[in-house]
């Protein structure tokens, strides 16, 4: 190390000393907020899947607020959590029901994210509220997708409208909504085939479903729920962007949150696309659904344990 470097190092120590907060002098333990501390924080943030940009912004904020101070990591995390909770806060009413006539909900998302199972959960939620539910099996593409939703409809005792394998999904959706109107159902939930957001033609197909439903009920679909697999990493942002572009999603159902994945990408999605999370899926059964609550969700981002049910 050259002489100059030594002097520089000495100076920076002094600077740190000067920066020391008066409160820190009375602390018996804690750590200096230095580069190592910030790196560690960065790692914790990255591991939630919130993404590099959000993580860097958070680290910068912490750096300017705490640099050179002696603190506990837990204390800093509390500050971070407070910010994230405010960001993720949202209106209490998760689903906007139609003033009259059936409330139509279209459920979409990439392949295998949990759409069909989540529909079963939503149906259970509504029937528990005494509502009459109709399911529309508009995934006419995947092998046995209709059979899968049919099994759920039988288990839950709700009606289902289906079409031939390979038939036009929009026509099935149309019939499901028309049937809901006829029998005076309260809620009509449309299942759609999984599709990757980059598949232009399939996204067009989704907008068509949207349009066709709107012809029957101008305000419909009242809700477009994007199902997001909690294990998803940064691709979730692209999913939220593209699906929202194609069908104006109204909110996210974060499925599979019962594993060890934190689902932190919804933080980045909230920042960039603005979509709120409405529900979380926490298992494979019909009652494994919970309202999204920002506080426990954010707390769980930073502990090793799976989020509380």
């Amino acid at each position: 190390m050259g002489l100059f470097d030594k002097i520089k190092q000495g100076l920076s120590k002094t600077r740190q000393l000067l920066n020391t907060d008066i409160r820190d002098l009375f602390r018996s333990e804690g750590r200096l907020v230095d580069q190592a501390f910030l790196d560690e924080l960065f790692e914790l943030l990255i591991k939630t899947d919130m993404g590099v940009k959000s993580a860097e912004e958070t680290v910068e904020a912490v750096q300017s607020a705490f640099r050179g101070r002696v603190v506990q990591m837990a204390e800093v995390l509390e500050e971070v959590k407070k910010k994230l909770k405010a960001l993720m806060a949202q209106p209490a009413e998760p689903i906007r029901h139609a003033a009259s006539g059936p409330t139509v909900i279209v459920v979409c998302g990439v392949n295998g994210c949990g759409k069909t199972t989540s529909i079963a959960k939503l149906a259970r939620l509504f029937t528990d509220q005494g509502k009459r539910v109709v399911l529309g099996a508009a995934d006419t593409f995947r092998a046995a997708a209709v059979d899968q939703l049919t099994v759920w409809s039988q288990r839950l005792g709700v009606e289902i409208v289906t079409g031939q394998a390979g038939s036009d999904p929009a026509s099935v959706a149309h019939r499901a909504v028309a049937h809901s109107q006829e029998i005076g159902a309260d809620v009509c939930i449309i299942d759609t085939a999984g599709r990757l957001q980059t598949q232009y033609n399939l996204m067009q197909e989704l907008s068509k479903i949207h349009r066709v439903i709107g012809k029957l009920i101008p305000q419909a679909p009242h809700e477009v729920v994007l199902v997001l697999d909690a294990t998803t990493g940064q691709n979730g942002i692209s999913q939220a962007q593209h699906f929202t572009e194609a069908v104006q999603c109204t909110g996210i159902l974060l499925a599979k949150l019962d594993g060890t994945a934190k689902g932190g990408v919804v933080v980045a999605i909230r920042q960039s696309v603005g979509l709120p999370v409405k529900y979380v899926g926490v298992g494979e059964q019909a009652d494994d659904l919970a309202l999204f609550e920002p506080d426990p969700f954010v707390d769980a981002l930073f502990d090793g344990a799976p989020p509380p049910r």
Partner: protein
Amino acid sequence: MFESLQEGLGSALRALRGRGKLTESNMREGLRAVQTALLEADVSFPAAREFMARVSEQAVGERVLKALNPTQQLVGIVHQELINLMGPVDHSLRLKPPLSILMLCGLQGSGKTTTCGKLGRMLVQRGKKPMLVAADLQRPAAITQLEVLGERLGIPVYAEHGASDPVAVCRKAVDEARRSGAEVVILDTAGRLHVDEQLMQQLSTIERRVQPDQVYFVVDSMTGQDAVNSAKAFNEALELDGVILTKLDGDARGGAALSVKAVTGVPIKFIGTGEHLDSLEEFHPDRMAGRILGMGDILSLVEQAHEKFDQEEAKLAEERLRKGEFTLDDFRKQLSQVKKLGPLNKVLGMLPGMGQMTEMMGNADAEGDFRRLGGIIDSMTPQERGNPKLIDQSRRRRIAAGAGVEPHEVNELVKQYDGMADLMKRMSKLGIRERMKAVQEFSRSAAANPGGRLVKQKQGTGKRLTPKEKAKLRRLREKEERRRRRQERNK
């Protein structure tokens, strides 16, 4: 596939390249950008850190700084380390007569059942007799799903509707396979969380009782940081023999490939590139690394072209080219040949530096363009196809009406054919390396001149682009063109 990682790394390395001489400090800056690209691509934090450590160690060394072309050196190092991390390859299913048992496992919805079908199809193509086993007794209609796939492929499926013990089902299936002379049994197990002790226990029991020859972990390429946790747990419970990475047909950055390889150490055998049962490809770390660095996946493309192109037809076309007899008929045949390779954007994505190009084409509905071009040629008489110069105004109108397009689109097609025929003529005289360059040049001029690219945006079904969208696409193309020129200069 891996496009975004490719873009991210590409821009990081371009930033380095632009500066000419490297210093230790701007090298660090570039390395930092590489790390950001990796994390944005969902490479797990520990795997990214390990990767960066290995790369930095070599990158800041004397050898690189003093090298004649330090940036090339660094690119080389990053490239090689990516290969090292994702390799070595082993695509073998390690089949052994008379009967081999493959078992697929993984988290819910990762693509196991579909992959069973894909593997089954691949085995049939290799002349083997597979049998699929419906060992998922949990998910509603899981058995039916596998049965539908089996029926589509003409492959027997062992299933017991109403059974409740997957271990028993698997054992009986193996007995049945022996009796019926099947050569490969593929077990489709239920999706499960790696933290579900009971279900993980059940998997180990199946493994113990049935003794599969190969156990594959099926993982979604969109998986984020959690990939390391699940892969580790499955590997501990089962001793995996391979990994299959699914859903790489989207824009997932696919960093999970690096993470899973890093924690399990087992080879990535195959990748899933679509919902259809023929969308299973061998995994190649060198090609993948090349792709990541913007060097394209030419080898994959060549391999696919070899499998799907009609070799006879191709030879014939080349012959005619050399003689300058390439007609619209040949053009038509070429179009359908290219179509066999798969969705156009997928094909383009495999060409070097074309990642951004496919992004730009996102809205352009290339498939529709292809169909329309084919339609126009089909509406011509054989004479017209042989000699497009015959096409005057009235013929043009007739052809347009027949194909359901505007007359000027017929014109554009003829123009494009001229350009293509010219390109082909030049190409037939070149070696493979020069050919690639010629194609790149062609696509570059196409990118700069969208009107002359494919027939104009006019879509029967899709929506038309708004002026704003068009402007955005144009800006993108211009930006891309500038980038290419810059890159060219810096070479």
